């Protein structure tokens, strides 16, 4: 087969259509012995070869069919005529033939109000907060349970709600968004519908979870992009700046997610997924100066990142004093293969039992550790298995009044409740479902870039 035919076949595989393209030129490429390519500014020939093409065409028959189809049409060499206004209008108002969308609620974050007997959940599918009776138990034959209240709409400033806190005194609901809408919103416990929050606070971009210290009236938020914890006054609103910041290489934070406070010991627990990079912290660096916002204690942003400094570390739990500030080293780090951490997305503390609970999204587990665990510590209990109904857990909370453990399962439209000592493949005491038990749905949240897999005829969608 001639080179031109190979190009055509590759392009055909690319387009799944008949195409003729100009042939690129010679190839001069090779490693320099240090894993570094040394060709800059020179062109390369197309990569052609039977193995590659077979991989693309899947079968010899398909390959031959593609080759035989080549040359029957030419690539465009001039702009085509512009369509008529009538055609333009028809296309602009043509509805889609298919839509992938999950209109059901999903539980991306939860908190329990044991005083008023409610479960409050952040819903990333519908940019909402949903409130259920704490004692709801969706029958296995039911499609879903109705929430008591839903806060949702354009006036709410809610989007990808990933952090929820219920004030035990007032019943106020605190919510943070992970993307686009950089606000913490605060709601009265009776709020519902498309209503504005009682107040809102400007937060750093990409906050993930929060913990509140009722003793000091402070809010702690993990910030993904900045590998940081921002601390605000609990009553802060509008543009009030943080009061403290934990950020810097000594902190060992790396894509932080969950955060929990042990009120007995005054320790903060932060769960980290593990990817990170270095950034400049010198105030003489323009990207660092004034923190970009003019606010003190604002995290140094990704604009100060150092090219080529990216790295991947194992997931971890890092522990700090709650009054820690600046580039402070963790008191302890739980990290290593024995920990079984796998995208540790949320964390909760049971101060009386001296235990911490970690929701591992893609481990499909809740792992439990001693609150003073350190290093490559194995969990003292692991909750997982088909009876547990745990599927992509992204939220975990402890109900200290009823001694129950709550888990938000993004992969099964459910919140499940267990005895606090549950272990192994324990059956939940109750299940609140917002969708069928046997469907995880598309799990789209912040659906972003997409691609088309021409070999499998599949749409690839990313969150």
């Amino acid at each position, binding site marked *: 087969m001639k080179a031109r035919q190979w190009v055509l076949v590759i392009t055909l595989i*690319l387009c799944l259509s008949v195409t*003729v393209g*100009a042939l690129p030129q010679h190839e001069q490429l090779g490693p320099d012995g240090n894993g570094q390519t040394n060709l800059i500014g020179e062109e390369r020939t197309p990569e052609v070869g039977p193995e590659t093409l077979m991989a693309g065409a899947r079968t010899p028959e398909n390959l031959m069919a593609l080759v035989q189809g080549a040359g029957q049409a030419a690539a465009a060499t001039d702009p085509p005529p512009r369509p008529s206004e009538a055609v333009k209008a028809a296309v602009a108002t043509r509805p889609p033939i298919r839509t992938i969308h999950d209109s059901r609620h999903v539980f991306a974050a939860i908190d329990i109000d044991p005083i008023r007997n409610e479960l409050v959940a952040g819903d990333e599918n519908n940019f909402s907060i949903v409130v259920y009776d704490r004692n709801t138990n969706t029958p296995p034959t039911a499609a879903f349970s109705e929430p008591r209240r839903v806060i949702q709409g354009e006036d709410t400033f809610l989007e990808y709600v990933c952090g929820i806190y219920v004030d035990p005194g007032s019943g106020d609901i605190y919510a943070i968004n992970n993307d686009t809408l950089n606000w913490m919103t605060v709601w009265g416990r009776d709020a519902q519908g498309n209503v504005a929050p009682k107040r809102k606070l400007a937060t750093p971009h990409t906050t993930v979870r929060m913990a509140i210290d009722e003793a000091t009236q402070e809010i702690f938020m993990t910030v993904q992009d900045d590998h940081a914890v921002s601390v605000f006054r609990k009553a802060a609103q509008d543009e009030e700046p943080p009061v403290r910041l934990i950020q810097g290489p000594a902190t060992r934070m790396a894509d932080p997610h969950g955060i929990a406070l042990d009120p007995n010991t005054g320790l903060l627990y932060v769960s980290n997924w593990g990817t990170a990079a270095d950034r400049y912290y010198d105030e003489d660096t323009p990207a660092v100066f004034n923190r970009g916002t003019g606010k003190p204690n604002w995290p140094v942003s990704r604009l100060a990142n150092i090219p080529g400094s990216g790295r991947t570390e194992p997931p971890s739990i890092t522990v700090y004093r709650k009054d820690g500030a600046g580039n402070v080293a963790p008191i302890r780090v739980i990290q290593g293969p024995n920990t079984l951490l796998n995208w540790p997305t949320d964390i909760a503390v049971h101060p009386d039992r001296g235990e911490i609970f970690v929701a591992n999204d893609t481990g499909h587990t809740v792992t439990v550790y001693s609150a003073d665990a350190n290093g490559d510590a194995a969990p003292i209990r692991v909750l997982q298995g088909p009876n547990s109904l745990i599927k992509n857990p992204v939220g975990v909370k402890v109900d200290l009044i009823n001694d129950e453990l709550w888990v938000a399962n993004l992969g099964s439209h459910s919140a499940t409740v267990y005895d606090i000592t549950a272990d192994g493949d324990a059956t939940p005491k109750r299940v609140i479902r917002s969708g069928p038990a046997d469907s995880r749905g598309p799990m789209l949240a912040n659906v972003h870039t997409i691609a088309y897999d021409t070999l*499998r005829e599949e749409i690839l969608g990313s*969150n």
Partner: protein
Amino acid sequence: MGHPQIAAFARLADGSTDATRSIAGQNTNFTRTIHDMAYDPVRDEILVPGWYNFSILTFRGDADGDAAPVRQIMGPRTQLVNSQRVAIDPVNGEIYVPQVRRVLVFDRDADGDVAPIRILEGPDTGLRGEGRVTIDPVHDLMIVSGGGDLRIFDRRASGNTPPLRVITDTGASRMTVNPESGMIFGNVGGGGRFGLDDYVGVWSVFDDGPVEPRLTIGGPNFLLKDVRGITLDVRNQNVIVSDKTHNAIFTFNVPEAFQ
């Protein structure tokens, strides 16, 4: 956002359907929202930028679950920073990474701490900040978005090379191209979350200057609110669009855009 993933859906998937497979987990090195990816039909591979570890991750095309990348470009020589965007030239075997006011080009087989084989940068390029890139290997063109313009370069351009032509004031940023027809599909939005002001505009790689889109898909003032991704199913003449506010993936059948 609770759960980054790359989920695969059947072409005919509709409604609240389950994915046929989903790539997600500790081994993937995914971070938060994946802002770009590319599918390489020749190698049957998926390329994903690693935002927090400044990397380009390559996965097998049939990857599923907590899969590790088969290759990972990462390290000081790469010059990668805040990697959010990637494109593949499957014919010539090159990976393109637009990054601030430059475009880094890597060999498709690059793995580990490797330097780019070419870099397009400099004042004559006119590159304007955060843009996307797409490659037309048939017409040998590299199209770079930025500042609302579509800058069309020779595919092999490097250094301080000016574009061949510029389609100005398109408003497009995210885009893809159909190499067969030379049609560029780019998102245009009004910036709001809830307004019906977004659409997919269609231009030709031969357009130059302030050219109105030949077609608009999904709007304006019709359906789309916040377009985040565009891809093409050429065989079935479909334009597939993701919308952040709708939290949905739409498939439009537009034969007129493939003629």
